[in-house]
């Protein structure tokens, strides 16, 4: 067999010995994971922020995002969606070892506790049952829902961190980056709730967003620098982010829209000038696009170490 023919014959699996992208969670149906993960951050972030600033409408929107966007999209991604119950006790005790199973449990507990909190936080219902009963329940379930919202917001980071074959993900800082980015975007959405006439304080949301943006910039820079030191494949991921096929999403989506635009609008508010509603809407939209861009970038540049340790210095 000639060399050319051999090459054609064998080309199928050649990719496995080169650093290659993970595809399951970003291409074809994998796009659903990207969208679901983004809604996870947005919903959990908004819920936590709303607990902090005491916005019932924010809590409701956060709960709706998790309940009707994150969970259905995530479950629809499964090859066997109707078997999703098998991921939970008593059918499975995988939560002991699997962050995926833990995440599903966090989500289920979150939607349940948050629902009770929302019910007893609703003014008419609170009046009906009496504040002596509804207030303690509101706070108790608020704490429970908050703890689980934290779990929902952070488990995606742990899932990716556990993947040893993808050095860019296998970083201890990843869950923190994902969690705090979610909270920052939660502040962005809280602004939207305030703008839409909800009970969220726009001023609070703006202040929180300002600090979180600064922290996120530092975290992302630290993450990229520390990941770059771990392996050549992680460096390759970073190169792809900065000047490869994902650079448009990184610079345009994450840096400009997700970080710079909200930061500039926030600074306008800080120096005393009044921020118009249009600018606030731009900030909210930018924040949200930034949230999608961050998850896209992380998932897209997940590159595996090649199988063969000896053929290359990966």
């Amino acid at each position, binding site marked *: 067999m000639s060399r050319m023919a051999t090459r054609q014959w064998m080309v199928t*699996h*050649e990719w496995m010995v080169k650093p290659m992208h993970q595809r*399951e969670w970003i291409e074809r149906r994998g796009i659903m994971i990207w969208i679901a993960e983004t809604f996870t951050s947005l919903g959990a972030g908004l819920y936590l922020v709303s607990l902090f600033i005491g916005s019932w409408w924010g809590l409701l929107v956060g709960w709706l995002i998790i309940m009707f966007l994150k969970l259905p999209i995530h479950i629809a991604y499964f090859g*066997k969606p109707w078997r999703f119950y098998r991921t939970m006790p008593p059918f499975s005790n995988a939560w002991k070892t699997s962050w995926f199973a833990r995440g599903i449990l966090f989500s289920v507990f979150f939607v349940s506790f948050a629902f009770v909190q929302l019910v007893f936080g609703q003014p008419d219902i609170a009046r009906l049952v009496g504040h002596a009963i509804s207030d303690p329940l509101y706070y108790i379930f608020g704490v429970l829902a908050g703890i689980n919202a934290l779990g929902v917001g952070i488990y995606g980071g742990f899932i990716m961190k556990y993947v040893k074959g993808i050095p860019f993900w296998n970083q201890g800082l990843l869950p923190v980056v994902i969690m705090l980015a979610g909270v920052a975007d939660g502040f962005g959405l809280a602004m939207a709730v305030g703008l839409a006439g909800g009970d969220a304080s726009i001023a609070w949301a703006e202040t929180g967003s300002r600090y979180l943006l600064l922290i996120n910039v530092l975290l992302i820079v630290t993450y990229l620098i520390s990941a770059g030191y771990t392996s050549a494949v992680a460096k390759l991921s970073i190169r792809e982010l900065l000047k490869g096929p994902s650079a448009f999403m990184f610079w345009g989506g994450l840096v400009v829209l997700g970080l710079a635009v909200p930061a500039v609008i926030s600074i306008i508010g800080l120096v005393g000038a009044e921020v118009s509603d249009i600018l606030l809407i731009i900030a909210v939209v930018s924040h949200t696009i930034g949230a999608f861009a961050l998850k896209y970038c992380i998932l897209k540049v997940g590159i595996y170490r090649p199988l063969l340790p000896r053929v290359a210095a990966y």
Partner: protein
Amino acid sequence: MRWGMVINLAKCTRCHACIAACRIEHFLPLGMTWPRLIAYETDIPGQELTTLPVRCNQCKEAPCVEVCPAEATKKRPDGIVYVDNNKCVGCRYCVVVCPYQNRTFFSRDKDPGFFPGHERTRFEKAGRKLYPHVSGTTEKCDFCMERIDAGMAKGLVPGKDREATPACVNTCQARALTFGDLDDPNSEVSKLIREKNAFQLHPEYGTEPSVYYIDSKIGNAPSNVAPRAAQTASHMQHLSTMEARAREIFKKK
């Protein structure tokens, strides 16, 4: 007892017989391949393109077992990691987490039938009764655990007796694949690992794979040219044992 495999890269002739044997043994759909022969380029003159046979490493500390949210991926006491397709939810976390990329998500488009656009053949239908590949779940090599179990029930020894040995090992005409008990220091696999300095892929992950490799210079051995007759003979030999086994199973049903 922990089943393991040693692959001698110097002996592998890249004939693809192991892949064919697995396909026949498990009636694999066309888009699905459990063991794979991956090709890569080297800078060795005359050996610019060479191959490495890979399959599920049946890791002792298997990350796929730990992450499976439905406990569909399990590890048996003999070290074999397998997927229970009746439990798998198809989340694909195991596919992503496997550092060796040896798991495949079985989607409908990977199953066009042996003759796309036509009804399944009787052979395919019979195969599906034996191995009902469930679309929407994950699949991988399981060291032919059915053969091992059936063989051991008859008192046979996997790795020594053909009937209790994985199909790929039986088929390998160059005898590049050796199967046996890693926990037995006197087994052939243990001896090979000891004497030939066998290595695992990415031991730094701490997964402790049960598949070892012997490498003189990866794939650069004179035995790389295999006589075609030998390949054909080994295929035929495997096919004949398969047919007998299928007949036996159908008779029981």
